[in-house]
């Protein structure tokens, strides 16, 4: 075999290795996409089944949401994100207290939203990865009363071995960015007092849960 033939062989060898690597990367990506699609379909099916019952009770709705929070949401991340820089130096027990009131706040808020907006024709669209290991799931449901399509985008990420939702964007508005802006401004206007936020949220939650 001449030197030229050897070089050609090396060249094809390199191409083969590159192709094999690309196949592995693409297969990895599509495996994640399949997992996310299954995760999203599971959640949307549960949402439609549980919240479109004609006589769902308030307590039941809230309990289902608590269960979803455990199963689908990355609450640790959300709690840190919405505190902005005020999570700096926050003792663990305060962080735990904040996580608890935040969880109840999310339950109260979404119970309110889901009471007013019936979910129908939930469809999952494109699933896109960004360059930070986050995936965006495009979805849409129709408000049968208003005959409007409402666009929902979920930002999901693998946390440990499970997929978890880190944000929900409704018509392009990020729920966690909105909450962070609100919480950070509240803490700032109260002299950096996170405890004040926790106690105010507790009061707010009791009203929200009673009326949702």
């Amino acid at each position, binding site marked *: 075999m001449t030197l030229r033939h050897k070089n050609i062989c090396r060249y094809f060898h390199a191409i083969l290795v590159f192709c094999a690597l690309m196949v592995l990367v693409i297969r990895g990506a599509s495996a994640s996409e399949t997992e996310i699609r299954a995760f999203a379909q599971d959640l949307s099916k549960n949402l439609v089944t549980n919240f479109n019952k004609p006589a769902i009770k308030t307590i039941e709705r809230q309990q289902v949401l608590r269960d979803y929070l455990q199963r689908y949401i990355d609450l640790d991340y959300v709690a840190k994100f919405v505190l902005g820089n005020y999570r700096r130096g926050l003792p663990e027990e305060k962080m735990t207290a904040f996580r608890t009131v935040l969880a109840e706040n999310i339950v109260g808020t979404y119970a309110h939203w889901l009471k007013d907006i019936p979910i129908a024709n939930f469809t999952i669209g494109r699933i896109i990865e960004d360059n930070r290991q986050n995936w965006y799931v495009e979805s849409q449901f129709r408000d049968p009363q208003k005959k409007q399509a409402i666009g929902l985008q979920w930002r999901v990420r693998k*946390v440990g071995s499970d997929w978890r939702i880190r944000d929900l964007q409704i018509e392009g508005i990020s729920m966690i960015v909105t909450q962070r802006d609100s919480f950070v401004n509240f803490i700032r206007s109260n002299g950096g007092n996170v405890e004040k936020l926790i106690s105010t949220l507790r009061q707010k939650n009791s009203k929200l849960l009673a009326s949702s």
Partner: protein
Amino acid sequence: MSLKIISPKVMKKCAILLFCSFALVACASSPNSSDQTRTEARYSDPQDPMEPVNRSMFAFNQAVEFGVVTPVSRAYDVVLPNLVKDGIRNFINHLRSPLNFINSILQGNFDQAAEVFGRFTLNSIAGFGGIFDPAKEMGLPYKGEDFGQTLAVWGFGPGPYLVLPIIGPSNLRDMTGRVVDFFANPVKILTSHTQLDWTPVAVEATAPVDSYARNYDKIQTLRSTSLDYYNTVKSLYNQRRQGAIENREFSGRQQMYGDDDEIDMDQEDISSLPDPSKH
């Protein structure tokens, strides 16, 4: 008619307006904490240096909302059938298209300008003067572009957050853009000194009523679930504007999370974060 109206006098007015808008927006910057006492700076939102005034204006707007906008928009929603409301909305969007076209060109977004032009032509002919929106069905949805967005594309910052009487949330850049859009609107220029000179004002008055009627339930839910409704509205406004400026699609979504998303929060060293009490 139109040649007579787009006279050097009008052009001169537009040029002066444009110059004033540059001068105003050039002044737009984040507040300097050295202008305030340290305590005030620590407790106030740097993007909202006029918060007390804005909050008063917000309260005034809410009173107007309860007293005027809510009954009018509820009546509008209940009395008019969906088909008529859709027609009104389509027509409002149609009349805004020339402005969208001009702003798309000023932003250097020629693809979008072509889309807007195509949409306008199609809806003018097949949509009976813009009352129907066949362009949307053909994959050309309405995209609003205003001079505030154009200024942002040209690199002007938002300036301080403002709550304008009746109009609502804004900032220095968008307020300037609004004024320029109103006076430079081709529909206004073409209809001024004619019997149709009320059209731009009617559009500006009807659009918020239509929008409020469509989103009434969401607004009420948002109000009742918010920790501080003023701050929630501010955040929603800023996010919506940023999304509109970036013509944000999914591929660009990650930037809205800022630096907080750079860190893997499971392992971050929180002591490395800047102290929020020091501006």
